[in-house]
């Protein structure tokens, strides 16, 4: 039974004398390599030139601050639960008096660590977060000589104040924020 018409009939005929000389074939091959010699290289010289990435690219995480500059994370642990690679650990602490400008709610993450070697950049932490605190950005996690260097603490994850604010991906749109507020959906409860 013939399923497609893509099959080719293969013949195993003897080579002719011209073919046995191999020179036409070798010269043909050399012609091909010479053609490529003058082609433009496809290499992207990475640190100087960066490839365009998709708008929804999921790279290194960032912990967002709110409009007043207070950390949004309340150390609820939903991201750590959602994480399939178990890359996230955190320690919660209670907000003291006078720290209202630093942390948005009464509870905050004293320690928040993501192991970038474990992380698979699936974005489930971002989806799980009820406080719009964690987002995956378009930045690439740089390489490191030490394994310890891949455990990112709050010093690397929390976005800076004012001009150092991390502009997150296109996924943090108004629609997304509205959608996450809708308690009608199970995972937003």
């Amino acid at each position: 039974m013939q399923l497609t018409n893509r099959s080719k009939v293969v013949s195993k005929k003897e080579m002719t004398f011209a073919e046995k000389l191999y020179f036409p074939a070798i010269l043909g091959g050399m012609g091909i390599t010479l053609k490529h010699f003058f082609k433009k290289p496809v290499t992207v010289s990475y640190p100087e030139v960066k490839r365009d990435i998709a708008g929804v690219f999921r790279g290194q995480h960032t912990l967002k601050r709110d409009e007043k500059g207070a950390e949004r994370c309340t150390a609820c642990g939903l991201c750590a639960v959602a994480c399939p690679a178990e890359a996230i650990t955190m320690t919660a602490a209670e907000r003291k008096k006078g720290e209202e400008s630093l942390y948005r709610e009464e509870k905050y993450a004293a320690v928040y660590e993501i192991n970038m070697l474990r992380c698979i950049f699936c974005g489930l932490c971002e989806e799980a977060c009820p406080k719009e605190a964690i987002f995956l950005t378009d930045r690439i996690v740089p390489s490191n000589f030490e394994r310890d260097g891949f455990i990112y603490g709050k010093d690397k994850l929390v976005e800076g104040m004012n001009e150092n604010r991390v502009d997150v991906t296109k996924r943090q749109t108004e629609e997304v924020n509205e959608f996450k507020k809708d308690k009608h959906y199970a995972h937003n409860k």
Partner: protein
Amino acid sequence: MISFLIYKTILVIVIFAVSLVVAMYSTYGERKIAAFMQDRIGPNRAGPFGILQPLADGVKMFMKEEIIPDVSNKALFILGPCIAMLTACMTGVVIPWGAAITIGGEKYSLQITDINIGVLYMFGVLSIGVYGVMIGGWASNNKFSLLGAIRASSQMISYEVAMGLSIIALVMMTGTISLKEITEQQAGGNWNMWNVVYQPVGFLIFLICAFAETNRTPFDLPECETELVGGYHTEYSSMKLGFYLFAEYINMFISSAVIATLYFGGYNFPFMHDLGLSENLITILGVVALFAKIFFFIFLYMWVRWTVPRFRYDQLMNLGWKILIPLSIGNIMLTGLITLLRQKYYF
């Protein structure tokens, strides 16, 4: 006498330095050409366009840890790369790099020594080169090295036969085995062409054998990364490995020079005596012409390397013994026949 010694010493040093520099930059050229043929950029970090890459490689080779295996034969292990390097540098002596330069009424030939058995000397040194590979592979006391060395020696011995036979046809035609005279016979004028026009088959056989003798793809079975780890130099490290790799590039340079000298007119270039240039200028332009030819052949070596895949071992032996040797014998007979007819009927 003193001036003669000084002139020869300078010439020897210059040619030694030039062959080392050319070999050094052949490694760079090889990587660049490979990259361009594969639509890549190639080394471009060390200096502008990566031109300091060979220096970086050299420094790397010197800095690497030197390992001599416990089970190896130490004296021979060290002797191997020495022979490879020595023989690679020795062949350059008989190649006429240019005609004579006249300074202050004295003629200074640009050939280190014009021995009248230049071709034989070349073959002698070339066949000693096999010992470098063989001794190195055997002294390593490693089966992959030994296999590589056996392959190398059998390959080089088989292809030397065809190479020698293809040269015999050329020698019959020119009537001399001095490289200087062979070059001078190819000087321009009176429809006097380069030897490649009269000996196309001989040239082709010589070219193929030169590829095999220098262990270049498609005949790189002695090294054969995919089958034998590294072939005869598997156990070598640091600058000893560097010498083996370097010797290959010097061999490439020298054999390109030999091909250019024997078949492509050496330092002769078209219309060299018809342009009314001074003798010294012709000599200098001749050296430039010779190097242009050499660089073309080095490019050809690399071009073929990145085009043609490696032979299987039996194919290699078939090609050598069953095709090239009968072909070169036929070529000798044809050359002899034509020479005889020419003598008889004066055409």
